[in-house]
């Protein structure tokens, strides 16, 4: 073995695959979600090994952190509705019939075949092969930022990024639409200690989130990671009941969701003219504009993710109406 890190790589890879299998096979759903969270964190670690700290941060914060919170909240809701709170169940909704061994083997064989086919194709491709490396290197100086990933996200492929924020917007609209009038499972009664913890950590998280955002132009970090960390603030606030959404906040929330998208798209349009096309920031203002966009997009992402966690639109639902609506 030439590189001792390869042992780490192999261990990590083995753990990732084992966790993936375990996530789907472990009986208790709560355990499955926890295993999934561990899997996400280990994947993030692997991605750090692959020199992708931005991606690792995003995965840890959004793909694992916020997603994990969402999954657990949902599981809580399902168990509350089913009256199985505090039990270990293999199902959230419908009772699961035991799976015969033959099906399991068939699944394994199917999974193996897919892996095999894709692996052959993967080995066929040139590793470390062609890419955008040279193009990015050439274009970075004109992009207004120094960090490659941020340059790609907010300049070279800013269109994708705008649409990504649009996806987030679509999600929150859809969730509000789906959950209107949904009566909520009461959140667990968290003690004073939790509230103290929240009070203590919240300012620090805000600082970290802002730092990640600010740092994004030159080092790993940026709007999405920062936004996710700030969303954690929102989630903590919601869980600790330090903040309770009220119907009056609805309009503000709507503005909060569209703020980032609106400014992003607006800037993209405003810079046009004089031979410049959409999204073509004038080089002398590029950094300012990108920072402006990133800042506001961060706010929107944070608000949106927190809203996705909270779920239903904060409306005053009278008990009778809720019943009828459902």
């Amino acid at each position, binding site marked *: 073995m030439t590189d001792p890190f*390869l042992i780490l*790589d*192999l261990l990590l*890879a083995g753990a*990732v695959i084992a966790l993936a*299998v375990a*996530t*789907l096979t472990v009986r208790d*759903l709560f355990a499955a979600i926890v295993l*999934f969270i561990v899997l996400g964190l280990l*994947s993030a670690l*692997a*991605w750090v*090994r*692959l020199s*992708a700290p931005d*991606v690792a941060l*995003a*995965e840890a914060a*959004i*793909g694992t952190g916020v*997603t994990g919170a969402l*999954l657990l909240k*949902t599981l809580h809701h*399902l168990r509350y509705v*089913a009256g199985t709170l505090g039990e270990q169940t*293999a*199902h*959230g*909704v*419908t009772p*699961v019939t035991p799976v015969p061994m033959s099906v399991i083997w068939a699944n394994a064989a*199917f999974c193996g075949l*897919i*892996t095999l086919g*894709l692996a052959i194709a993967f080995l066929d491709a040139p*590793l*470390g092969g062609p*890419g*955008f*490396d040279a193009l*990015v290197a050439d274009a970075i100086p004109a992009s207004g930022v120094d960090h*490659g*990933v941020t*340059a*790609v996200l907010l300049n070279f*492929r800013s269109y*994708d990024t705008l649409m*990504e924020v649009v*996806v*987030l917007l*679509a*999600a929150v609209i859809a*969730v509000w639409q*789906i959950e209107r009038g*949904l009566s909520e499972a009461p959140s667990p009664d968290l003690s004073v200690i939790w509230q103290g913890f929240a009070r203590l950590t919240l300012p620090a998280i805000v600082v970290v989130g802002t730092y990640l955002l600010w740092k994004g132009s030159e080092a790993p970090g940026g709007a*999405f990671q920062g936004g996710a960390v700030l969303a954690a603030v929102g989630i903590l606030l919601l869980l600790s009941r330090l903040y309770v959404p009220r119907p009056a906040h609805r309009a503000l929330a709507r503005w909060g969701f569209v703020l980032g998208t609106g400014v992003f798209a607006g800037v993209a349009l405003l810079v046009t003219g004089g031979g410049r096309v959409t999204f073509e920031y004038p080089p002398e203002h590029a950094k300012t504009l990108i920072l402006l966009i990133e800042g506001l997009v961060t706010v929107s992402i944070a608000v949106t*993710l927190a809203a996705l966690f909270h*779920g239903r639109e904060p409306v005053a639902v009278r008990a009778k109406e809720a019943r009828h609506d*459902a």
Partner: protein
Amino acid sequence: MTPDLIYGLTGIAVFAIGLTGALCAQDRLRRVLALKLCSLGAGFLLVVAAWREPPAAPDPVPHALVITGIVVMISATAVALALIRRLQSLEAEDDD
């Protein structure tokens, strides 16, 4: 043997596991988990594809794509979970 090879195959395996789970899972929540595995596998593949033998820096474009993919995936997950919650409530009401 290089890290990209190891993690590339890992990613493919995770994707395949997720795919199998998505097709076979009986429980709604478990299916979401399976789909998350697929997305993780795809993330692995792109991160691996961006990797270059050090000291060369990796290609930032796939990294940006994976970040986008992660955000897209959480949006989709949130919607799916909202559907599951709502549906469960409706079905529970019917049972009453």
